[in-house]
């Protein structure tokens, strides 16, 4: 059976073809059903004809190999695949609604919309990278959105899985990707850097901000190579409404040298989620393209770009974690916050490219009115922020790798855990206040964070003096009294 002869109502691999929803040059996409599966599904059937570009076939093989390895909300669920010995096909979950491509005619979009789309896509990329896959063909066409809001990435035909043979690189020695979005290192045939996807997302953010493509759509290899030395018109020169922080983010994504881009998609998502924390550099102020002389100098040097060392994605991600310090800045906690700082310092001594986010919680009342000012009428939020920055000063972490957040929430532990989850935090460092009977009875903030955090948690405790330890260990009887007192309180409510 060949793809051309398939028609609605026919069966392939136990799936009933319902409707052809796309007929592209490389594959046709069918809506399919199977009696035992209620999930909406699509089947991708490659066009295999003699004389076809063999890269079509290999890219389908790659997708058949990679998609079953992926899981989670940011990829379509893999259902089944058909073997090359008969008719190859790939069945996956159908994600209804259009791709990001359909939003492009509306560009330039408002900055907050761009940041929202960018952060969701970056979160999806980070999830993909954590599963050891680099997409290498991120385009607006390949980004869909679930009804619940999460971005879904599709089309893994050019992808690279860290632990599987890279069929693409081994077969073809020409740069592979989509011309407007391909990263400079991919042009040089490097397929092992997860930051290539960050470059492609940078192109998409540029497009959403200006309505134009930074490098156009070159058709030749020489045209693709231009992005290694010719820069582009900065977004703010094309759209005055584009804020400085957005230009800063876009230009950082589009750096020619991957090491100058965001280290991970999680770090990019973080910047897009907290525009007010983006540190502005000369990138934000750039108003026009570089002079011909500067471009000429870069052209003279660009051939020196060697392919970067082939290293594993997982090992790279390990070097660029987001570390969160949960700090209690109240004066009586000074000793503990000092120990916490030491612990953070120790982490940053080995993780030089890590990013630190300092978080403190201002507990707001569950019921009643929160005025947000202290007795002297000072703004409490600002006060907390000042103290947090003061705490971090001694760490000497450069401004572009540190940020500060005051969370206002009645439940500190829940606030910290939610923050860690939303910001792709890899490691939480939190202090445990001393041991007390009541704390052990009610449960401490740190123990609740340990129980619920989506990542590694280091609990820091100031050294407890032996005599205090003894006191803590003794009062079993008193604990009983507290218990009965609590029960009494609860029942008398």
């Amino acid at each position, binding site marked *: 059976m060949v793809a051309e002869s398939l028609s609605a109502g026919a069966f392939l691999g136990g799936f009933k073809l319902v409707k052809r929803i796309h007929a592209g040059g490389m594959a046709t996409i069918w809506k399919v059903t199977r009696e035992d599966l209620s999930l909406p599904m699509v089947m991708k059937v490659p066009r295999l004809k003699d004389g076809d570009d*063999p890269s079509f*076939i290999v890219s389908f093989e790659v997708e058949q190999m990679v998609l079953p390895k992926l899981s989670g909300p940011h990829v379509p669920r893999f259902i089944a695949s058909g073997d*090359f010995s008969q008719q*190859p096909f790939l069945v996956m979950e159908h994600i209804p609604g259009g791709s990001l491509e359909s939003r492009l005619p509306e560009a330039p979009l408002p900055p907050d919309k761009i940041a929202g789309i960018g952060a969701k896509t970056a979160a999806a990329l980070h999830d993909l990278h954590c599963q050891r896959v680099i997409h290498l063909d991120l385009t607006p066409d390949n980004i869909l959105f679930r009804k619940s809001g999460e971005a879904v990435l599709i089309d893994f035909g050019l992808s690279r899985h860290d*632990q*599987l*043979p*890279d069929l693409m690189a081994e*077969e073809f020695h020409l740069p592979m990707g989509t011309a407007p979005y391909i990263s400079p290192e991919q042009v040089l045939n490097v397929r092992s850097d997860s930051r290539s996807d960050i470059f492609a997302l940078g192109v998409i953010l540029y497009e959403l901000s200006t309505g134009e493509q930074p490098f156009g759509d070159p058709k030749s290899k020489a045209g693709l190579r231009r992005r290694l030395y010719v820069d582009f018109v900065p977004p703010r020169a094309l759209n005055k409404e584009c804020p400085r922080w957005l230009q800063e983010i876009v230009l950082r994504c589009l750096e020619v040298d991957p090491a100058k881009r965001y280290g991970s998609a999680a770090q990019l998502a973080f910047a897009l989620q907290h525009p007010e924390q983006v540190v502005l550099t000369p990138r934000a102020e750039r108003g026009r393209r570089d002079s011909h002389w500067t471009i000429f100098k870069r052209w003279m040097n660009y051939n020196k770009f060697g392919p970067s060392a082939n290293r594993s994605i997982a090992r790279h991600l390990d070097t660029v974690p987001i570390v969160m310090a949960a700090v209690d800045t109240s004066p009586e906690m000074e000793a503990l916050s000092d120990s916490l700082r030491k612990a953070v310092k120790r982490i940053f001594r080995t993780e030089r490219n890590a990013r630190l986010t300092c978080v403190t919680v201002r507990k707001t009342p569950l019921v009643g009115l929160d005025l947000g000012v202290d007795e002297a009428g000072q703004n409490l939020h600002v006060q907390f922020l000042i103290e947090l920055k003061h705490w971090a000063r001694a760490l000497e972490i450069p401004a572009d790798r540190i940020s500060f957040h005051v969370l206002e929430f009645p439940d500190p532990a829940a606030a910290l855990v939610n923050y860690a989850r939303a910001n792709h935090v890899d490691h939480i460092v939190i202090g445990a206040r001393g041991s007390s009977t009541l704390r052990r009875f009610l449960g401490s903030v740190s123990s609740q964070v340990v129980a619920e955090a989506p990542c590694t948690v280091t609990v820091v405790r100031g050294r407890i003096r032996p005599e205090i330890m003894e006191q803590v260990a003794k009062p079993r009887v008193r604990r009983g009294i507290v218990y009965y007192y609590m029960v009494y309180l609860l029942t008398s409510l």
Partner: protein
Amino acid sequence: MRIAFFADIHANREALEACIYHSILQGVDKHVFLGDLIGYGADPEWVLDTVMRYYENGAIVVLGNHDEAVLQRSRNGMHSDARYAVEWTRTRLNRHQMKFLSGLPLQIDEHDRLYVHANAWAPNQWGYITDTFDTARSLAFTRCRLTFCGHVHERYLYHQNGSRSVNAFVPQPGVDIPLSTHRRWLINAGSVGQPRDGNPAACYAVYDSALNMLTYFRVPFDVEAAARKIKEAGLPEWFGTRLEQGV
């Protein structure tokens, strides 16, 4: 069916025991022994008795160059220490074990799979497959889609596409690798009893014929015990130290 491939055990009881136990936990249905059951190690009797027991229960065993050397009088092409180990091994084996070795085939075809110790172009010449050219040569001499072999003591996965170009890949342990039916594959299962890639842990592979999936495993074993026995048996001491270093 899940098939475990054990190559180059080299009379290492500790490594074989660990791998057998590991493979049972992997739900393996069948074992294929890809030659060089003996030589270098101090436990040829135990290893042979174990493999013979598996053979009686349906396992497949092919001959390796060290197995053949024990059967022959002249052993040209082997370095002196290896030759000494062969002589020593022969003194330890009984008639039953020798008969088993002499009956082993050089290669076996099963469905779309070829099992052979060294290569398919001249299995009795023991030429090594060390690169993509050797692989292309070997694949040209078999109709099978999958070739399983050992002999070089390092795990490698080679694949060949329709246009006959071959590429190599170093597989990571514990990762399921789908073997696309669109291409041909040569699987070097690594070595159970004497890995030489810098990692002393035993290496073997499991192929799932229903899922068409290949997985390599690295299994730690009591290297010190194996090395000590080599020393106590009076075999060249460096056979033991190389085990500890995985070289």
